[in-house]
C-alpha cells in the first residue's frame, strides 16, 4: 500500500509529539525536532511538486471513504502552510524564549501545521471538516499564549470559529443525508443534480464557515484582537496561513464542489458573473475598503497589520470570486504573496516587539539605525503589501485589477484600486513610526535581533523579490492547478504576462531593470555632488530651536488624525458592536430562562404535575403534537 500522503500528513504531528517529549529532556532537543520535522514536511512536499495524487484512502467512516489527495492548488496551499510554519518555528526559538509552557507551544504549532496540511490534502468533506475543527481549537490554544489580553481575543476567536465550523457541519450533514458519501467528486455530482434552494443553502452555510476563518467582513471581528494579542510568530501563522486556509476552502467550494457553470445556473445571470459569486465579490470588496480605512487609523502595529490582513484577504477572495482564469490565478497568486509579505511583516514587527517590548506605534521610532535588517525586511514587506512594483504584491493585485476590468466589474475595480491606495497610508505609517523619525532615548541600546530571527526575515524578503520579478515561477503551479479544475490558464511567461484578450501586458523584468537603471543614474548624480557627513538626529530643523534629548521631536501619535476627521463619522458603528449587542441581549434572555430553576421544592413539584397533565393532554390530542 502506498503510504506516501499519510507519511506527509503525519510528519508534523509526529514532529509535534517528539518535540513535546524532547522538550522534557532539553530545550535544544525540542527545537531540533520541531525544525527538523517541519523542514522534513517541506522536503516531502516537494516530491509532489509535479505529481498529483488523486485518491489515497485514509479510512472509512459512516460509510463514506476518507481520502487524501493532492493537486497543484492544494500543493500551493500546502506549500504556504509548511513554509510559513517552518519559518514561524524558527522565529519562535528566540522570540518565545523564557516563556512558560514552550513544549506545549511547539506541540500546538506543529499540530496546527499538520491540521492545516490535512485540510489542504483532504479529498472529502469529512476529512476536511475533521482537520478544520482540529485547526480551530489548536489555533485557539496558540492565540491565548500571548498573555492576558489574548485570552479575551482567543475567546472571541473560538466562539466565532465554532459558529463557523458548525455552520459547515450543517451543510456537510445535509449532503450526507442525501448521498451518504462525502467525497468531493460525488458531492459535486449531487450538487449539480440538486434543486437550487438546497444548493444555495449549502453554499451559504459553507461560505459562513470560510468567511470566519478567512476573516471576510462582516465575520472578521475576531481578527483585530486575535492577531494583535497572539505571539508574533503565531500572528504570522494566523495571518499568513490560517486566513489562506479559509480562502482555500472558498476555492474548493467554488470550483471543486460547485463549479462556475452550476453557480451560474443557481441564480439568474444579471451580472457579468454568477450572482452568487458576485455577492461574494462584493463582500470582499467591502472588506478591502472598510478595513483599509480602519487600518489607517490604528495606533497599534499589530492591529494595523490585522486590519490590513482583512483587507488583503479581500483581494484573494475577490480574485477567486471573479471566476475568470485571470481572476482565479490572481487570487491564488495573491494568497501566496500575501502569505509571504504579511508573515514577513508580522515577523519584523515581532522582532521590534522582541527588542523594544512595545507595539504602540507612537512609542517607537528611529529603529532603523539599530535594527537595519528588520528595517529592510519591513521595507520589502510594505512595498509588496502596498502593491507597488517591482515586488510580488503588485503582480497579483495587477492580475486581479485586469481580471475585474476584463469582466467590466468597474465598481469592484474601484474598491480594489482604492484599497490599494489606502494601503500606502497605513504601510507608510507602520514603517515610519517604527523605524523612521527620531529614536527615543529609551531605545538607545536596542540591538538587532539574533540571527535565528533574521533567517525568516531574509528568506521572506527574498521571496517578495523572486515572485515579484519572476511571477512565472508561481504561475507554473497555478496554471497547472487551473487546468486541473478545468479552467484554461492564461498566457504567461517567466517574467510576466504577454497580454491579449482585453488584458494588458506586463513584463516585470523590464520594470525592475529600468528602475534599477534609473536608480543608477540618480546615484551618479548623487555621487558627483559633495560628500555627505552624518549628523545626529538632534541636529535638526526646528525653526532655530535647539532640539535636546528630553524633547520628543517626533510626529507619530495620531498620524492620520486629519484623515480620521474625514472618515470617523462613518465608522461610529461596527459589526463588532452589533455582535456584542446581540450577545448581551442573548445573555439577558438566557438569564431569564435560567430562573425556571427557582430552587423551590413547591415549584419543582408543580412541574411534575404540569408534565403529567401535559402527557395526559396528549391523550385528547391522539398523541400528535404537530
Amino acid at each position, binding site marked *: 500500500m502506498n503510504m506516501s500522503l499519510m507519511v506527509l500528513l503525519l510528519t508534523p504531528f509526529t514532529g509535534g509529539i517528539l518535540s513535546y517529549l524532547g522538550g522534557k529532556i532539553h530545550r535544544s532537543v525540542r527545537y531540533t525536532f520541531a525544525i527538523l520535522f517541519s523542514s522534513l514536511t517541506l522536503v516531502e512536499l516537494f516530491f509532489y511538486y509535479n505529481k498529483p495524487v488523486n485518491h489515497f484512502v485514509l*479510512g472509512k*467512516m*459512516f460509510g463514506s471513504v476518507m481520502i487524501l489527495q493532492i493537486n497543484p492548488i492544494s500543493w500551493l496551499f500546502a506549500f504556504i502552510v509548511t513554509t510559513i510554519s517552518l519559518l514561524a518555528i524558527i522565529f519562535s526559538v528566540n522570540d518565545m524564549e523564557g516563556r*512558560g509552557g514552550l513544549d506545549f507551544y511547539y506541540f500546538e504549532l506543529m499540530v496546527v501545521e499538520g491540521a492545516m496540511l490535512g485540510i489542504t490534502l483532504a479529498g472529502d468533506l*469529512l476529512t476536511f471538516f*475533521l*482537520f478544520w*475543527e*482540529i485547526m*480551530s*481549537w489548536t489555533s*485557539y490554544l496558540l492565540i*491565548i499564549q500571548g498573555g*492576558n489580553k489574548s*485570552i479575551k481575543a*482567543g*475567546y472571541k476567536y*473560538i*466562539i466565532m470559529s*465554532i*459558529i463557523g465550523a*458548525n*455552520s459547515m*457541519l*450543517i451543510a456537510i*450533514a*445535509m449532503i*450526507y*443525508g*442525501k448521498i451518504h458519501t462525502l467525497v468531493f467528486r460525488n458531492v459535486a455530482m449531487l450538487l449539480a443534480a440538486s434543486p437550487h434552494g*438546497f444548493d444555495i*443553502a449549502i453554499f451559504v452555510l459553507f461560505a459562513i464557515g470560510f468567511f470566519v476563518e478567512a476573516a471576510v467582513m462582516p465575520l472578521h471581528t475576531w481578527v483585530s484582537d486575535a492577531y494583535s494579542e497572539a505571539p508574533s510568530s503565531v500572528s504570522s501563522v494566523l495571518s499568513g496561513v490560517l486566513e489562506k486556509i479559509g480562502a482555500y476552502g472558498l476555492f474548493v467550494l467554488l470550483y471543486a464542489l460547485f463549479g462556475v457553470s452550476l453557480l451560474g445556473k443557481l441564480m439568474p445571470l444579471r451580472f457579468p458573473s454568477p450572482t452568487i459569486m458576485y455577492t461574494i465579490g462584493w463582500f470582499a470588496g467591502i472588506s478591502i475598503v472598510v478595513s483599509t480605512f480602519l487600518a489607517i487609523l490604528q495606533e497599534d502595529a499589530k492591529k494595523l497589520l490585522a486590519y490590513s490582513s482583512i483587507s488583503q484577504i479581500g483581494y484573494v477572495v475577490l480574485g477567486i470570486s471573479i471566476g475568470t482564469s485571470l481572476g482565479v490565478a490572481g487570487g491564488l497568486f495573491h494568497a501566496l504573496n500575501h502569505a509571504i509579505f504579511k508573515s514577513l511583516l508580522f515577523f519584523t514587527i515581532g522582532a521590534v516587539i522582541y527588542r523594544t517590548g512595545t507595539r504602540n506605534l507612537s512609542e517607537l521610532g528611529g529603529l532603523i539605525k539599530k535594527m537595519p535588517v528588520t528595517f529592510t525586511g519591513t521595507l520589502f514587506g510594505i512595498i509588496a503589501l502596498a502593491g507597488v512594483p517591482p515586488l510580488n504584491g503588485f503582480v497579483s493585485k495587477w492580475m486581479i485589477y485586469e481580471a475585474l476590468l476584463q469582466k467590466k466589474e468597474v465598481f469592484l475595480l474601484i474598491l480594489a484600486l482604492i484599497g490599494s491606495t489606502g494601503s500606502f497610508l497605513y504601510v507608510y505609517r507602520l514603517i515610519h513610526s517604527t523605524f523612521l523619525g527620531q529614536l527615543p532615548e529609551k531605545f538607545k541600546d536596542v540591538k538587532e535581533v539574533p540571527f535565528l530571527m533574521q533567517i525568516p526575515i531574509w528568506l521572506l524578503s527574498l521571496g517578495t523579490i523572486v515572485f515579484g520579478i519572476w511571477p512565472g515561477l508561481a504561475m507554473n503551479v497555478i496554471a497547472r492547478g487551473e487546468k486541473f479544475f478545468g479552467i484554461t490558464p492564461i498566457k504567461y511567461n517567466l517574467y510576466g504576462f504577454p497580454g491579449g484578450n482585453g488584458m494588458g501586458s506586463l513584463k516585470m523584468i523590464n520594470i525592475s531593470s529600468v528602475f534599477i537603471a534609473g536608480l543608477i543614474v540618480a546615484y551618479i548624480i548623487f555621487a558627483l555632488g559633495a560628500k555627505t557627513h552624518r549628523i545626529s538626529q538632534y541636529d535638526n530643523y526646528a525653526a532655530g530651536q535647539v532640539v535636546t534629548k528630553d524633547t520628543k521631536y517626533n510626529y507619530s501619535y495620531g498620524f492620520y488624525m486629519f484623515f480620521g476627521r474625514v472618515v470617523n463619522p462613518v465608522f461610529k458603528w461596527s459589526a463588532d458592536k452589533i455582535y456584542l449587542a446581540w450577545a448581551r441581549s442573548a445573555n439577558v434572555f*438566557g*438569564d431569564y*430562562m*435560567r430562573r*425556571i*430553576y*427557582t*430552587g423551590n*421544592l413547591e*415549584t*419543582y*413539584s408543580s*412541574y*411534575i404535575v*404540569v*408534565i*403529567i397533565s401535559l*402527557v*395526559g393532554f*396528549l*391523550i385528547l390530542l*391522539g*398523541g*400528535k*403534537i*404537530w
Partner: protein
Amino acid sequence: MVNLTNPILLIAVPLFFVFLAAVIAPFSKRATKYLPPVAFLINLIITLYLIPQVAEKGVIVATTAGIKPPFAINIAVDGLGLSLAIIASLLGLIASLYNLKYITEEPQDKFNMLFLLLGTGITWMVITGDMFNLFVAFEVTSISAFGLVGFLRDKDSIEAGFKYLVMGSIGASLLLIGVVMLYAATGTLNMADIAEKIARFSFRQKLLPYSFIFTGLGIEGALFPLNAWLPDAHPAAPSSVSSILSGIMTTAAIYAIIRATVTVFNYSAITPFILLIALLTLVFGETSAFFQKDIKRMLAYSTIGQTGFFFFAFSLGSVQGMQGAFMQILNHSLSKAMLFLIAGAMITQVHSRNIDDFSGIGKKMKISSVFFAIGAFSLMGLPPFFGFWSKLTIIFATLAYTNFYTITLVVILLFMSVIEGAYFFRVMQSMFFGKLKEGTEIKEASPGLVVPFVILGIVILTLAIYPTPIIAVSKKIAVQLIHRAVYINAVLGGL
C-alpha cells in the same frame, strides 16, 4: 463452579459485598472501603466476559429459580444494556478507587454500603427484563442516592438531599402506578411479554401507563422540567458520587425510558413529544450552565444539557439517531465522570467551588487541568476526541432528511454546542491562563485522586485515537435496539 457468565452475578456480587460490608463494619470501618473496588472490578470482569456472548446471541436471558419467562423474574442483557453495565462497572470501579483517598468523613462503612448499593441499582436497572424489577432497581438506586447526596451533612447537602428525596419519591410512586396499570391491563410484568400483549391496545389505552412511567423515570433521567433536583443534588454530593450520578445514573434512567418507549410500548407516535422535551432539556440545561459560577453546578447543568442531547438523538427514532445517542452516552459518561472527579480533586486543593477561585491553577495542578481539558474537549465534540464522532453522527442523523424543521433543530443543537463551548472554554481559560490568587498554596492532588481519573482519561484518549470499532459496535447496538422483535423473541424464545 460458578458460571462466570451468568448476568445475575452482576447484581448478586455487589449485593453480596454490601452484606459483607455490613458484617465487617462492626470490626473495622476502614476495611469496608476496600470492598467497593473489588466488587466493581469483579463486575467489570463479568461484563467483559459477557461481551462475546452478547455479540453472538444478541440478547442473553438469565432466569431465577429455573422458571422461564414470562413468569419468573428474569434478566435480559442486550447490547445497550451490557454496554451501560460496562460503563457502570467501570465508573463504579474508578469512583470507588477515588473514594479510597477522597472520603475521609465518617461514617465510612455506611457510605461504602450505599455506594455499592448505588452501583448495584444502576447495573440492575440496565440489565433487568422485568417491569417490577425495574421499579425495585429504581428504588434501590434512588434511596442510596438520597443517602449519598446528603452524606456530607452540611446545609447544602441536606437541603439538596431532601429535595431529591421528595422528587425521587414522587417519581418512584409514579413509576409504580404505571407498572401497576400495566400489570392490571396485561397481567404480566415481563417486559417482552407486556410488549407482545400491549400491541392490541389502542393508543389511548397505552398512553396513561406510559405517561406515568415516563414521568417517573424522567425525574431520575433529568428531563426538563422534572430535573430541578439535579443541579442541587449533584454538586452537593461528594464528587465521586456526583460522577456516578451524572455519569451513569441519569443515563440509566434514560435507558429505562428508551427501553420502555421502544421495546415495551413501541411508541413511535410519541417521538415528537419526546423530541420537544429533549430539546427543552438541552436548551435549558446548556443555557443555565452558562450562567453558573459554581464549577460542580455548571457540570451538573451540563449533564442536563447532554442528557437532552442524547435523548434528542434517540427521539429521532432512526438507526443512526440511536447510534449517535449511544455514542454520546458513552462519551458523556466517561467525560463527565472524569470531569467531576477532577473537579473534586481540584476542590480539595482550592477549597472552593467558585470558578473564579480556579484561576491559574493550571500551572500548579498540571495533570488535573490537562485532563480536565481533554474531558471538556471530548464533551464539546472537538476532534479528534470521541465526542466529535458522536456529535457528527447525531447531526447526520438529524439531517437525514433536509427540511425546514430538521435544519431548525440542528441550528438549535449547534447553537447549544457553541454555548457549551463557551462556558467550558471560559473555565479552561481561567484555569490555564488566569492569575493565580496570591497566598494560596496549591499543589497537585494526591496520586490517589489523580490515578483514577487518569485511567478514565486514558480510556477517552484511546477512544479518540481509535474510534472506529466503537462506532461499528454502536451501530450494531442501535440496529438491535430498533428491531424490538429480536429482543422480545429472545426473551420469550422458550414459549
